């Protein structure tokens, strides 16, 4: 009997260990699980965070009503850069049954040169499986005041003097116990002291893949120009969101700037055109295979730059761009995906001409079904859309619509955001265009002007789709006229415009002006701008809501369903 009891006990422990061990994985440093569940989050902090010392940490659950409910909280005071390790004080856990905060749980913080490594022991798992860790940074410097603010937050949900916020993406605590977050000022932009440093400008960028479990992505940034040496680059970087790092990527066969890049449906990446180090158009298309981590195939193509490339289910398609002698190329090059397979004999190319192929200054966008060629200097503003499915069937099916009431988009950049085509012209307007079956409707918004500015236009900016609901316009140059008849002053722009499909949603200022910078959105809230400035520092701008994570309401995360 005793033997049986012992056996049962061992099996119970075994079963429990098994249940615990799988999500925990292999604990680093050999520390054993004591009570509750361990979570670890590395918060990469920006430079200005070192000016503050009052930090409140919360483990927050998202309720079905989209409200947020902290389930663990604590605070600590520390001077970043001076303190090394610390523990959060007054760590409390929220008891849902009686609504009382109880002294339980544990939070340890390792203060490292670029990040705060936060370890949380949560006595119990939240019932719902959408959680995130948050750090609020408040102005008080003294411990007592910080404690007061912490209590205010716990009881009244007031956070006076909030200067910075750190958040992880929303995660399922049963599936993940390790994640990262960003901690940056709320109101102003800031820089990362070290992570994501790069002097690359004007890269050709594409998302390589996304970890289904964590949601973290990898991006491939190829070519462009080193802003310090002015060398056109043949190297690529891989930006890894999971640890906010840039690792050396593959080497292209040719240096390129202002070329086109496209992700092929099987995960490979095609790059075409661009200018080489002598500023001549590159007449080759090459394909990167992430499995081998190398550019494997090279195919001769029409030499052009400022071209666009998109992928269909079966083809890679190159449109537009400036060819030899500065002539806009009207031809559409179509390469079946087989070009990238091993036999050169199978390389095929089909050439077509579309009727309205744009002109110099034209911009491009695409969605799942179509690719768009927009504008072009010297012709009436128009949009041509090419159907992807038609191309796979061997037909170039395109239609064109003239945009009334606009003289010119100028030298534009475009992207598709939801149902709308966003076109940022070079004359100071952003156009929001809906083109459904029956009609085209256009609304526009002028770029914000400051007092004393008579006219403002922006050129050479970066215009990047950040998510299904957000885009950013930053960097480049503001051409400002202060008085009628006066020549425009050219000022490198520090403006960051956050756009939705309805208009300009936020205006922020960058720490450094940039040209040819690239950006991505971390956790749908932290805009990270990489490269394009000679300081080489990555810049961060919090564009979310301090109340709750943007991820609650944006496309892709649906409350009530499991985070996959």
């Amino acid at each position, binding site marked *: 009997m005793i033997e049986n009891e*012992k*056996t049962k006990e*061992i*099996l119970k422990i*075994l079963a429990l*260990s098994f249940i615990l*061990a799988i999500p925990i994985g*292999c604990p680093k440093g050999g520390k054993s699980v004591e009570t509750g569940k361990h979570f670890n989050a590395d918060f990469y902090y920006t430079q200005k965070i070192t000016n503050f010392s009052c930090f409140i940490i919360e483990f927050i659950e998202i309720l079905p009503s989209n409200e947020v409910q902290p389930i663990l909280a604590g605070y600590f005071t520390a001077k970043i850069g001076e303190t090394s390790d610390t523990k959060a004080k007054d760590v409390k856990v929220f008891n849902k049954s009686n609504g009382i905060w109880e002294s339980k749980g544990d939070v340890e913080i390792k203060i490292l040169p670029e990040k705060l490594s936060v370890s949380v022991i949560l006595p119990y798992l939240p019932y719902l499986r959408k959680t995130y860790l948050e750090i609020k940074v408040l102005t008080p410097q003294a411990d007592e005041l910080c404690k007061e603010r912490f209590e205010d937050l716990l009881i009244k949900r007031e956070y006076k003097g909030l200067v910075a916020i750190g958040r992880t993406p929303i995660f399922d605590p049963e599936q993940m116990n390790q994640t990262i977050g960003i901690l940056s000022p709320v109101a102003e932009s800031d820089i990362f002291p070290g992570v994501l440093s790069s002097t690359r*400008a004007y890269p050709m960028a594409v998302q390589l893949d996304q970890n289904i479990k964590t949601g973290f992505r990898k991006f491939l940034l190829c070519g462009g*120009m080193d802003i*310090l*040496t*002015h*060398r056109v680059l*043949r*190297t690529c970087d891989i930006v890894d969101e999971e640890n906010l790092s840039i690792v*050396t990527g*593959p*080497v*292209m*066969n040719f240096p390129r700037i*202002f070329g086109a890049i496209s992700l092929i449906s099987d995960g490979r990446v095609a790059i075409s055109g661009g*200018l080489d*180090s*002598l*500023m*001549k158009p590159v007449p080759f298309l*090459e394909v990167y295979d992430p499995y081998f981590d*190398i*550019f494997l195939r090279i195919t001769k193509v029409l030499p052009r730059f*400022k071209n666009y490339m998109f992928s269909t289910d079966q083809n890679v398609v190159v449109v537009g761009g*400036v060819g030899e*002698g*500065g*002539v*806009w190329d009207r031809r559409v090059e179509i390469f079946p995906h087989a070009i990238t397979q091993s036999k050169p004999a199978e390389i095929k190319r089909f050439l077509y001409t579309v009727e309205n192929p744009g002109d*110099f*200054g034209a911009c491009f966008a695409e969605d799942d079904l179509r690719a768009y060629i927009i504008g072009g*200097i*010297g012709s009436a503003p128009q949009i041509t859309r090419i159907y992807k499915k038609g191309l796979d069937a061997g037909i170039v099916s395109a239609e064109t619509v003239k945009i009334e009431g606009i003289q*010119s988009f*100028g*030298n534009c*950049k475009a992207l598709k955001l939801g149902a709308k085509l966003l076109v940022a012209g*070079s*004359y100071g307007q952003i156009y929001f265009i809906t083109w459904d079956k029956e009609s085209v409707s256009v609304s526009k918004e002028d770029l914000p002007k400051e007092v004393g500015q008579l006219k403002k*236009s922006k*050129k*050479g900016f970066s215009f990047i789709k950040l998510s299904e609901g957000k885009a950013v316009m930053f960097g*480049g*140059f503001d*051409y400002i006229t202060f008085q009628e008849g006066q*020549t*425009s002053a*050219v000022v*490198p722009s520090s403006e960051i415009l956050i756009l939705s499909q309805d208009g300009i949603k936020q205006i922020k200022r960058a720490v450094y002006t940039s*040209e*040819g910078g690239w950006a991505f959105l971390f956790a749908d809230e932290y805009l990270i701008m990489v490269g394009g*400035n*000679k300081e080489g520092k990555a810049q961060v701008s919090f564009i979310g809501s301090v109340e709750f994570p943007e991820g609650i309401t944006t496309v892709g995360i649906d409350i009530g369903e499991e985070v996959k």
Partner: protein
Amino acid sequence: MIRKCPLFLFFILLFCSCKSENQTSANVVDQIILSFYPQNKSSVFPSDLTIYVDLAVKPEVGKIVFSVWRDGGDVPGTISIEEIDKKFRVYFTPIERAEGTYMVYFGYGSEVTFWAFFAEGEFSPLIFRPDSMPTDGEKNFPLENTMYVSFAYAVNPDVIDEETVRLIMIKPSLEEEIVPVRMSLYSNSVVVSAGAISLSTNYRIEVTNVVSLPYQNNPGTLSYKARFRSFDFSPPYIVGCSPDFCVRQCAEVDFLRGLEIRFREDEELDELSVLDNFILEKNGRRVVFSEVYKVFDTVELIKRNSISDPIKLYIYRNKIFVDFGDGISSDAIIKIYVLPRLSDSSGNLINDFFSWCVKVI
């Protein structure tokens, strides 16, 4: 014993999953290919270009597959083997050590490896020779020619638009009109095409505030303006004068403050040829003008003579005007001569002799 077994198995399982990243050492022992150089994704100077693979066994030459491509093309080279510290180094020595991206495939027996690296030398930012077509002041510019402005630096293609690149037609009235153009950029050259421009017309091409590529560590903005005149094959043609001496040969007036000869509206006289080929006599004596002005876009004094007679000559784009100061009120005969070599700015001679007079009575 039976009771402990599941626990043991569990920990073995956990141990294995945790250590999986480090279990390659056993395999490494049997590897033939130990390492290669240059490293994957690294860069070397072309002059230092050496490619080799280190093997653990002495290779049979016939079994080695060593292929190198640069920028997609085969690289010819020689293969040699050297023994170094019990390793066997297989070299590929390219015939030409050129810049570029190299892809290397090495196979021996059942083992293969391939990698890429690149060779690049020191880099000096590109400086181009500035140039333009048309040049500033150019005449007889062909009507359908493409124009370009080339800067010393590469230009950011994103800033080229109708605000930074303009072709302006300057009307005889000096009114300016922007001409719709197609534009493009090729390297450091802004290329402008207007289709057909008008005959005998002045234009200005302006490329202003374009941004060098990159803007940082460069001059920043670049600007260039050039004024030119389109093809003009018509000789200067007189369309009128005042008083109307050119109709009557000799006009009679009771007071003469000034006189003028008008040419076609699109004419642009050559001011130096006017100085030499427009002659005025007053009562039989050649008039020396106290001041001569060129009045095109601006008023420019081009000649001054120290004389007491305050008669001034104004050469307009399409008009010659003589200002007699206080005027001539009586008993004077003014003779006006236009000689055949009077020309326009495009070099077209009037090729005729004109002689008129004005009597002040």
